[in-house]
Each structure stands twice: as structure tokens, then as C-alpha cells.
């Protein structure tokens, strides 16, 4: 299935993906407007420091998702068609079990609303994902695993060609 990947060598920790994600999940869909929205739109990707390196992390949409198993309200569902782990916020009661069990820490508890927020691949909309389009260095990548491997390979060749 298609997934959001990160070439961690290229991440500059600018957090543009975080802003773009929050704007995508806002009502007005513009940065200046989104920052004034109540409740504040929530980003579902977080740039974390991993061993001194920045890493933008969002839901990995696991094959065997722990969050789906842990959710008693039936909020979390793995779509058989797209493979995306979808969440339905209307059903969420805010028990935060999914937050506890997620091995990646990729689910955000939204305390003021007693709900959770997570990456849903921009509601599976066609085209590029907000975080991927916002990335100024091209660190983020959306595609099949093989495509990402191919992309990394090409980048290696190019940098070797440059003598870097």
C-alpha cells in the first residue's frame, strides 16, 4: 500500500509538515486563518528528535494495528480497500487506549475535545499529501515501498555522482 515515508537525511526540522497538516485539518484551509480557528486545528504529524536527528512521524497504518484492537468504541478501522487506518472522531469517547498502545506514539490525544487525532492520509484524497507537498527539501515521500526504495537509490547515485 501507499505510505508516507521520510528520507531522514533530508529533514531540516523546519516543521513545515506540521503546519501544513494542521491547515489541511482546519475549516478555512489557510495558514493565517487556521491559527485563529477555535478549536485550534490539530496536526497529526510531529517532528521528533530521534538520536539527535529530526524525524517527522505520523501514523504508519500498521498491517496489524494495535489501536484497532484496543479501541472499544469502534473508532479505529483498517480500510481493506486502501490499507489506511481510519478514525471516526464522532464515535471517539476519549479513553485514549489507542494512544497507550500505539508503538510509534503516532496518535495525538486532543484533551480539550476528549478525542484523538491521527493521520488519515488527508482523508485519502487524490494527489499529494499536505505534509509531503509542504516539505521544502523533499524529505517526505508518498508512494509504494518499492517506489521509495527506488527514489532513495536514485538520490544515492546522484550524490555519488557529485562526489559528495
Amino acid at each position, binding site marked *: 500500500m501507499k505510505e508516507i515515508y521520510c528520507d531522514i537525511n533530508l529533514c531540516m526540522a*523546519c*516543521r*513545515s509538515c*506540521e*503546519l*501544513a497538516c*494542521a*491547515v489541511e485539518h482546519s475549516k478555512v484551509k489557510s*495558514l*493565517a486563518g*487556521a*491559527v*485563529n480557528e477555535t478549536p*485550534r*486545528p*490539530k*496536526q497529526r504529524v510531529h517532528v521528533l528528535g530521534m538520536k539527535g536527528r529530526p524525524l517527522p512521524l505520523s501514523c504508519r497504518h500498521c498491517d496489524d494495528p494495535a489501536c484497532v484492537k484496543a479501541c472499544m468504541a469502534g473508532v479505529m478501522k483498517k480500510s481493506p480497500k486502501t490499507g489506511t487506518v481510519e478514525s471516526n472522531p464522532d464515535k471517539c469517547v476519549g479513553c485514549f487506549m489507542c494512544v497507550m498502545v500505539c508503538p510509534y506514539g503516532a496518535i*495525538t490525544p486532543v484533551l480539550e475535545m476528549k478525542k484523538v487525532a491521527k493521520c488519515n492520509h488527508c482523508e485519502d484524497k487524490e494527489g499529494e499529501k499536505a505534509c509531503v*507537498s*509542504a*516539505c*521544502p527539501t523533499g524529505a517526505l515521500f508518498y508512494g509504494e515501498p518499492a517506489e521509495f526504495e527506488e527514489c532513495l537509490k536514485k538520490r544515492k547515485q546522484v550524490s555519488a555522482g557529485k562526489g559528495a
Partner: protein
Amino acid sequence: MHDKKNRSVDPAAQKMIGKVCETGLETAWDRYDKMLPQCGFGELGICCRICVMGPCRIDPFGEGPQRGICGATADIIAARNLLRMIAAGSAAHSDHGRDVAHTLLMASEGKAEGYEVKDEKKLRTVAGELGIKTEGRNKNEIAKDVAEKAFGEFGKQHGELMFIQRAPKLRQDLWRKLGVVPRGIDREIVEIMHRTNMGVDNDPENMAMQGVRASLGDGWGGSMIATELQDILFGLPKPVRAQVNLGVLKEDEVNIVVHGHEPLLSDMVVTAASDPELLKLAGEKGAKGITLAGICCTANEILMRHGIPIAGNFLQQELAVMTGAVDLMLVDVQCIMPGLGNLVKCFHTKFVSTSPKAKFPGAEHVQFKEENGLSIAKKIVRMAIENYPNRKKENVLIPREKTDLIAGFTAESVFEFLGGKHRATYRPLNDAVMSGRLRGAVGIVGCNNPKITHDWAHLTLAKELLKKDVLVVVTGCSAIADAKAGLLQPEAAMKYAGKGLQEICETVGIPPVLHLGSCVDISRILVILCNVVKEGGLGNDLSDLPVAGAAPEWMSEKAVSIAFYVAASGVYTVLGQPFPVQGGKQFTDFLLKGMEDKFGGKFAFEPDPVKAADLIVKHLDKKREALKLKPMMYK
């Protein structure tokens, strides 16, 4: 990212952009596209690089850090950043003024080749205002004192800037009460740098007041000194006919483009370009003559005083080179893209920098010195002529577009026309506003910005306002945009203006949009507003007047300084791009609302020029109502 066809509304620019796409040459538009997406933290003004505990940034969505390492909030960071933009903008205009003062001083001592006091009448007027004795003294003696006094304004530590006295009494008193009267031009800029340094001023509103102070040192200081002393040195502009757009470049003549902001060297180039010896040399090299054309404010300066044609505005600097017909581009300071250095490699064009303050990769440097200004100008013209035979015919593409225009209005000339030559007075202007024939006046100024379709916002806003019987005055790149579209012709009144404005333009024979000069000449607008208040009937302070300012396509830090001194002078100011402060909510609120309580002027951010025109018209009507003026004559 915008469609390449939507990059400009100017047909000449469109043609050149078409060529760019074919040849793969790169312009600011292409670089802008490559820059997307632009950083949201920068856009909102909430990243701070002022100390190296950082860089810090505030999460505008409230989840991540809400304070920098020092504890600064989003408001503090946004205010600090904006303040430093004001410092840079004010510094740029003021350094321009300082250079002019320096040249005037040298000219008065007979040490500057080619320069002399051209306008003795204005010299005597300004000297009188500055408290300098004029009786029984010759022009050089007076000019020396005026230059020294102007110099003093920059380094002054106490007291008040002299030109503050030009403002209406109420305005002066308000500034004094708020503690924002500049003590010295440089001092206020230095104080911004101090206050925004780590751990100094951390009260956004208090910071804004220092921003106002430094900006007033620009509008009523550096810029005003630049304008007044340039008039003394090069002559007070008078209405003059000329032409504008890339079509002014000639296929069979040596083309020299002057680009930048100061008239000091370019005015000498004007003289040099008509030197018989150089013209003869041009003939020997196969050229039919020498064409001089300008870009940006240098262009406006020599247009107003000599009728030299304009090649284009800010976003046309690269397009001019791409015509393949520019033999030499001479630059001084400000708004010169370093990208030109790379671009000229693809053409025969010589790229010549002249200011010790502004050197560029890919440029040849010919140092400008006032002592031998004319000789240097001649040397540069000679370089252009000698480069003419290197022009490759197959690379030449000059768009045909050029438009007639009238420019060169000033505070001294323009409105006096309204009263006729023998009855120079602002009375008819005030009467026109009071009787409802004219709704008010709006200054549209500022840059181009690849974020906005080139010239589109300037033109749309101007046309919307003309329809509503608003007299439009313009400077800088906005003036050039309007000129290209034919708005600086008297006939434009019939086409675009409302009935009341049409009647005025027809009677007096002026265009509905008046070209008042370069960016430092926005100080002329301030003087005009003071004269209108003085004339009487429209209130007692600048903030009473039915006027507004707008910068629909601004990009430079200079525009931030201008916007601040205009708003702090009591004028409603509408900006096409927001200041990069919106991550700081309270600070933004202060600029958009709170400022009005203090100064009677405030900002609005509105990228849509039609909506901006609505905001402005509403504001003018509000002011008209407060003054209890008659309803508009024509609906």
C-alpha cells in the same frame, strides 16, 4: 504556483516571460515557484534567530513550544522581527538622504564635478525653514549650511527632527505626548537594534512605539531630506511628457539602463549621454544614438527631472536584460536582484555596480565618487558604447509596447495648478473635496512581488478608486505600473474616472493619477497633506482628512517603514501582503485596531484589490461624515 500566463498583466512583460519559458532562462517568478512551499513560521513571523540559544519558533497551533528559550512569546518574537524590518527600511531611505546631503555639501564647496545648486528658489525656502540665514548670501554659502544642517539631523542625539515642524500642530503635540518624535534619524534606528537585542524590550506595544519613532525619522527625516535636497541639487521637477515600458529600448542605438534608487550618478549619466564626443563615438560603432532608460526609483528620479524614459518596474529588471538589447546596466543601491549577475552571462550586457555599499556577483565595479561624478558617468557611457558591437542581433527581442505619460508633479506644483498659474493655492482642491466633487485622495505606492500577478493589484486598485471619484497619487514601482497602463495620461480620466473627478481633470488638464516621484518622494505626499490641512476646511489634523495609503504589491523592508510612518501620521494604510506578524495575535490586533486609538491611523491587510478599494472608500466616507462634508455630487 501560478500559471506562467498569469505572471503579469503587462503585455510587454508577458512577451518577455514567453521568451524566458522558451529559452529556459530563469527569473524571479521561476525562483519563486521553486521556493514553494514557503516557510509558515517565517510567514507568521514566529521564528527567532536573534540569539544562538535558538533558533526558536512558536507552534502557532498551540501544541508545541509556546515560548522561545528566553521565554519570548509569539507576540514578542513577531514584534522584534517587524521592528528590525523597520530599522532596515528606515536605514535604507535615510542613507539615501545622507548621500544626497554629502553631494550637496561637496557641490557647495565646488568639489563635486558636474554638480551645482540647480534650484536656488527651493534652496532659499528650505534654508529659511531650517533657520539658516539667506539674506545677502550666495547660493553656495547657503547650500553648505543646508547640507551641514541636514547632516546634523542624522547624528543628532537630543531634541526633535527639524521637519517634524511641518506637521500640523495637533499632530506634533500628539507625537510629543506619545513620546515618538525622533531625536535623530540614526539614533532611533540604533535604538531598535538595541531594544530587539536579546533580553531588552519585551513589551510588543512599547516596541511598536519605537518602530513608529524610527519610521517617522524616515518619512519626516531621511526621505524628506532626500527629496528636498535632490530638488535643490537637480531642480524641482515640473510636469513632463515621457514614455514607459520595454519598448523604449532601441534596436539601433546604444541602450543604457540605470537601475536602483539614487539620482546622484544617473543624473550625471543623463548629461554624459548627450555629450557630443560620446555621441560621435556611438556613431563610429554603428549606433544611431544613445538611449537611456531607467528601472525602479532611479528611473523615477531622472524621469521627473529630465523626461528620461522608463524601461520598467521592479519585476522587469531581468526582463530588460533578456531583451538582449541592453548594452550596459548601471546599478547603485536597493532593489537590485543579485540574480542579474547570473543572467548577464547569457547576454552581452555589461552589469556595472557603482556604490561601495552594493557589489554584486557577476558585476564589474566602477566606483562612484562625487569628486569626479561626470567623468565616471562618461566612462560608464563609453563602456556601453564599446560594448554595442558585441550585441547579437539574433538574441534581440524588444517588445513594441511603450506608453505615453505625464510625470513630475510635486507638492509645490501640482495642486497649485488647480488654482491656476497666477493664483497658486490649494483652495480649489479643498473645495472640490468639501463640495463632494472629489471623495478624497489615496496614495498607492510600493513594489512588485512575484506572489501577486505583476502590476495587476496596482492597476485594479487604482481603477476601482478612480471610479469612485478618488484622486490617486502614486510613487515608485506603483507609478510605473500605472504609467504603462496609460493611467498617467489626462485622457485616462474620461475612461476610468467618476464624473466628479473627470470634471476636475478636464478643467485643469491633469491626469487622474498623479506621478509624485520615487519612494523617498512619499515625503511629498506628507507635505501635500500638511498643506491641505493648512488651507482649511478639512479638519485640523492629518487624521481628519479623507485620505488613505496603499501598497498592494509590497515586498521590501522599506515598505514596512513607509507604512509605519504613514499610519503614525494618521493615515489609514492598506497592505496587499500582511506584515509577517500574524502568529502574534495581540500584536497583530494592535496594528489592525489599537493603533488607531493612538494615532488615528492603522493598518489593514487585504490581498484582493477590489476589496481593498471597498475598505478605502468606506474609510473615506467615514472621514467625510466626521467632517460633515456635503454628500458626493455624483453617485
